[in-house]
């Protein structure tokens, strides 16, 4: 199905690759830290592509020297939300940039049913298209088990 390629959501960097191991995640984190970016753990069970703002797990982490600290928080988040989507975002606060430089998924549910393509017929035989997540039919917190 074109709306659920490989039964996996592909958002952010590396999302067409197999899941990164913790070791590979650690290397990416260390790369971000080396560039002076602040990392942030975010999670959601509403992975609609237009849902830009995921929930924050704590505040963005500044003044961190070693990747172990970020992995520690990632694991805390995984423990609390084992079948949510969890991503790391790296924020570059340099003046003039002030935006996310890297964002990648570090946890995802076992089953990802994907999205339903909804067609709405409107005046003059026009069709409007939109996506709806199958999982989002369930209330928040009950979507992926």
């Amino acid at each position, binding site marked *: 199905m074109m709306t659920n390629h490989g039964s996996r959501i592909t958002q952010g960097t590396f999302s067409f*690759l*197999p*899941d*990164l*191991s*913790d*070791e*590979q995640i650690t*290397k990416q984190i260390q790369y971000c830290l080396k560039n002076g970016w602040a990392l942030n753990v975010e999670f959601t069970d509403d992975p609609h592509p237009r849902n830009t703002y995921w929930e924050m797990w*704590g505040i963005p*982490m500044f*003044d*961190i*020297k*070693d*990747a*172990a*600290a*970020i992995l*520690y*928080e990632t694991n805390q988040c995984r423990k609390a939300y084992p079948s949510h989507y969890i991503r790391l975002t790296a924020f570059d606060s340099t003046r003039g940039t002030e935006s996310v430089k890297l964002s990648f998924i570090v*946890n*995802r*549910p*076992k089953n990802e049913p994907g999205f339903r393509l909804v067609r709405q017929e409107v005046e003059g035989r026009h069709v409007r298209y939109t996506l709806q997540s199958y999982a989002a039919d369930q209330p928040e917190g009950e979507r992926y088990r």
Partner: protein
Amino acid sequence: MTEASENNIGIPARDAVAKPAPDDTPVDLEAAFRDSQVQEVLDKLDRELVGLKPVKTRIREIAALLLVDRLRRQLGLTTDTPTLHMSFTGNPGTGKTTVALRMAEILHRLGYVRQGHLVAVTRDDLVGQYIGHTAPKTKEVLKRAMGGVLFIDEAYYLYRPENERDYGQESIEILLQVMENNRDDLVVILAGYKDKMDRFFLSNPGMRSRIAHHLDFPDYAAEELMGIASLMLEQVQYRFSPQAEAAFQDYIRRRMRMPHFANARSIRNALDRARLRQANRLFARADGHLTKRDLMLLEPDDIVASRVFREGVPDEQRPDSAME
């Protein structure tokens, strides 16, 4: 979710255990020692820190242990990650913070901490003011210290038995957990006075059992303090005139007997005040013929003007009296 190991694109695990080698595989301890460049740090320690014999010996022993541990690992022998959490006990100004900094460097060179920085904190940085404040605060500090050394000064203030609702206990519990589970990620050094620290360990056996090395920092003898003074002056390119040196020796002997004596820190403070007096002496001089030597030389006047000589009271007792 796919199994993590399936996705590993060939990156070997850190400190991967090698295949067992035959028992008669030669081992070049000397070369390993040279390669680690730990000698450099140990030499610097010897050069820049006067005295502290027992501490230096312990540090050498720890370095040797870690080096052997690393060689064993390379030869495929079983090794647990050694516990490296330490306690530094001693009176004020005996060099605990200074040595902790060096320790971070040594552990970094031997590959036991990845970044080698030191985060120094006290109770206030770890313990919060209200319910729910302590855990995030303590974790914040622990995260900052990961990859390096966390130095907790006057650690015993974390534990206040007289107040059963004190949040310090919560902080201790998080520390214990991370000290155990994240042994690869950070080394914790607890510091403080010996008697208070002993009492702290008595009431926190969990903490005691996680500390592998107890280092005791002795008070300095008068000659050592003089050595420290010379070293400190050298670093800022000052020196004593011969008479001033005698005066300072006298100063040390008197100051040591007075209250609030803080070993090397008292020496540093005394030298700072001597420099202040020297500057004022130079200004007050009528002739105005100064040479470079005058700017470097401390004279007896700069020392005997101290209240230690005139009233038998340390200057620092009254901060406003530094000029007297």
